[in-house]
């Protein structure tokens, strides 16, 4: 299951029943210990770049941006209940949303794992 990445440090992956997205391990480490997570409700429709949530650590409040156009199918209640999960397993258990993508082919506009790594290595993360 290939993952795609945005320059806002989010990942998105296709599964049988739709797409899943979250924040990258790099982003989670940069944020530090996450204390609060706020997500949109099921049915919320968004366009690429819209703010679709909020992550707070003790020192930073960071918006979550929509990687592509779509609609919220499920929000990860477990991560909202226990924000520390985002530090433990950002690219696994602490996924943020299951979403319906309006245009799956738009995924190809995003970075693949290799490109994202290069992006980080060349200072894209700072």
């Amino acid at each position, binding site marked *: 299951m290939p993952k795609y990445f945005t320059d806002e440090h989010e990942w998105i992956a296709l599964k049988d029943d739709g797409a899943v997205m979250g924040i990258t391990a790099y982003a989670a480490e940069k944020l530090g*210990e996450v204390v609060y997570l706020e997500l949109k409700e099921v049915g919320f429709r968004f366009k690429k770049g819209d703010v679709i949530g909020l992550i*707070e*650590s*003790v*020192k930073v*409040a960071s918006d979550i941006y929509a990687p592509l156009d779509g609609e919220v199918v499920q929000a990860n209640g477990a991560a909202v209940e226990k924000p*520390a999960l985002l530090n433990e397993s950002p690219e696994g258990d602490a996924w943020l949303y299951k979403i319906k993508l309006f245009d799956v082919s738009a995924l190809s506009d995003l970075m693949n794992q290799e490109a994202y790594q290069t992006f980080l290595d060349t200072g894209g993360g700072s």
Partner: protein
Amino acid sequence: MEILPESDFVSRHIGPTDQQIAEMLDALGVRSLEELIGRVLPLSIHTKQKLNLLVARSERKALSELRQMASCNQVMTSMIGMGYYGTETPAPILRHVFENPGWYTSYTPYQAEVSQGRLEALLNFQQVVMDMTGFNLANASLLDEATAAAEAMALAFRVCKSKARTLFVDSDTHPQTIAVLQTRAAAVSINVRVGDPFADLDPLSTFGVIVSYPASSGNVRDFSSLTSALKAAGVITIVATDLLALAILKPPAEWGADIAIGSAQRFGVPMGYGGPHAAFFATRDEFKRSVPGRIIGVTVDAHGHQALRMALQTREQHIRRDRATSNICTAQALLAMIAGFYAVFHGSNGIRKIAQRVHHLTEILSQGLGEIGLEVLTKQFFDTIVVHTPKQAAQISARARNAGINIRLFDPDRVGITLDELTEPSDIERLWSIFSAKSVKAPSISELAALVGGSYPVGIRRETPFLTHPVFSRFHSETNLVRYMRRLRTKDIALDRSMIPLGSCTMKLNAAAEMIPLSWSGFADLHPFAPLEQARGYQRLFAQLQAMLCEITGFDAVSLQPNAGSQGEFAGLLAIRAYHQSQGHGGRNICLIPASAHGTNPASATLAGYKIVAVNCDSSGNVDLADLRNKAEANRQTLGALMITYPSTHGVFEEGIKGICEIVHQHGGQVYIDGANLNALVGLAKIAELGGDVCHMNLHKTFCIPHGGGGPGVGPIAVRSHLAPFLPGHPVVVEVSGVPKMYPQGGAVSAAPWGSPLVLPIAWAYIAMMGADGLAKATKVAVLNANYIANRLKRHYPIVYSGPDGFVAHECIIDLRKIQETTGITVEDVAKRLIDFGFHAPTMSWPVSGTLMIEPTESEDKDELDRFCNALVAIRSEIAAVERGDIAAADCVLRHAPHSLQDLSGAWRRKYSFEQAFFPLEEIRVDKFWPPVARIDNVAGDRQLQCACPPMEYYSTAAE
């Protein structure tokens, strides 16, 4: 031989002696202060002439002038009400808190480990507010009741699901509150509809409703069925209320309100002609992420012991910038703490008795007025009634004035009377005689007292207990109270203990002579809406202070109304918008803000309805001129303003400032200069001459008003003459400009016409006692001190951001990023380790992450600067041990700092000696500061917010 006593205040305010100044100049390789300034301050910005101020007054002379002003203020019995009441500051609180530098010279408790005392005092305040209003969340104060109402409006707008853009305001609300709501709402395109909530309110057309309980006119109405209808429609109900009344009235949370706001002034804080006082803000836990201002929360320290800290700071503007919940930085900490102590002093029974007595006297007054043939229009009241006096109102209020009482004049046919804690039965008799014709027999107080006294109906009667926490019952004897206050005070580092080198905060001396007038009745006991002829002393003070500030900044007019720096920014930006509108350029709504700006700038600009366009900065933190030009050009039709700080937030005098202002003016914009760093300019350069159109001054930084542990702040704005007509006005006191027949058109930004007058004598006294030469010398020494520190530390830490000649302005930034990268030692580790040396940390990670910004001010002498530098040098060698691999970062003395006495219980297991932990330098043995707690766990406190007083065991362990 001089025959007049010479003023020596300048040499008492400025720390270093001439000998020390010479030594420091020598260390810098500069011959004189003048040469230093010549090399630091760009030639193009030097002002040509020295300030035109009166000769420096001695402390005695300044106090005598102020005493004369105070004596020109006429202190009357105030029965005006409208949010300001007579109250008695209990003497132990006056002496041990209000007049004690251990409380008033401390800073906002960001460094929680050295702030446990005031954090506890603020937590008590939150508990008082929660208990009285019935809500389970309260913040640690806001600026005043009117701005608290505006903050509540903003919260309601944010959390409400409705798409409506209208706020409904109960017409029986204090007029200053309505006015500030209108100002704040208009700026962000919210409509305000004022009316009778029982007749004019359509829930579907509004997102929020503000009701007053009790009403401005005194009426106490039952809103419970209204709030359930509003709740069903998804509308947020905000209630403006009164803490004392809530001792006997049903708390708003119990009848369905969502937010309660109001003023805690009558809990022991003098009226002070309008301020400063603490406003309160309480709501339900579910809105905690949207609450404005600071919230004190309970957490644990590294040993697992309970400790306090400011919680949920990510809501604040220094992190969230234009998306912050509010632009407020300062609160009214000192006044909130006093209100909290007032409740500790009186306890639940005491507060209830005061409330019952005030209410009982009001009933007697009302009944008696009925007996002498007058119609009292208010049927259900707490402390305020309206009397029907057809065509007689003016005459009666004049008669009251002659008898020494101010009452409220509603209109030609109605007057209002408000009683308070200070009202005595004889005052009631005086009132009756004022209202009655001579032939009528006077009522008898004792007879009426037996007659009245029915309780409120169930719907509005308080049934639930309040102030049940032991802190409100353990300290009623003065012996216990004084010891409690001292115990809290000694937990904190304030300026009475050591230097507080916070960059951008200007923690200079708050001289006792400047503070003394605050306790005088002639300044303390005036109601803000008292007739102007009773406040001649204040009017003189305002006029003189305004003239001084105009002279210092080079501007033409000053408004004293903004009661915090953030308020000044807001008022200044509104003046610019109104000016553009008057020129037919209403569309000029772009605000350029450099990336290096303090977060309050974008937060204020958003609040004032601007769209923000960020301007890039170069690697030295200076504005990128090419980018500025491009963005000004791209927005030339819509450019409204540029906000810029000078010297820059990086502590550098930007060479290009005049060019920057010119570019903005060429493209139709106005320049707002943030005066946060004015302490580097006073007497040497004038902001108006740099090209600014408006600036705010932080009187609590540059002009000696103490920080009070996080407020009061005062942020007047100075403007060029073309902006003067758009300065803040006031709905009750239209003569607020001080200039005859000049009524400013700007909306009110604060509740009181002149903001916080009680603390203005401090700024006046400072300027009067320093004089032109003293002020200029203070600026020069502030620059010298910063450069001396930079010079001493540069061999140990990289100094970032200096001017072309290698000098800094009045603050310096040391860079720890490299250290962090190679050793893992963080800025926080260094900051906390400084506590073991007895110091409050400099500003952490601002304006640049991974750095410390140090501002020594002119008040610290060379010995204190050396003590501070010695500490940082010693810390550097502790870091070196980690660099060498002698000890792991996780085991080192920095990571476990600060070291509290708890560290000594049990066997010593650290990988360094306890000598190193507690006495790293020999000089510390002389006056060791013992941190009351170890490193505080921020994460635990934010994951599980608790903002009420913890159980009593905490107090007993903390007391040991």
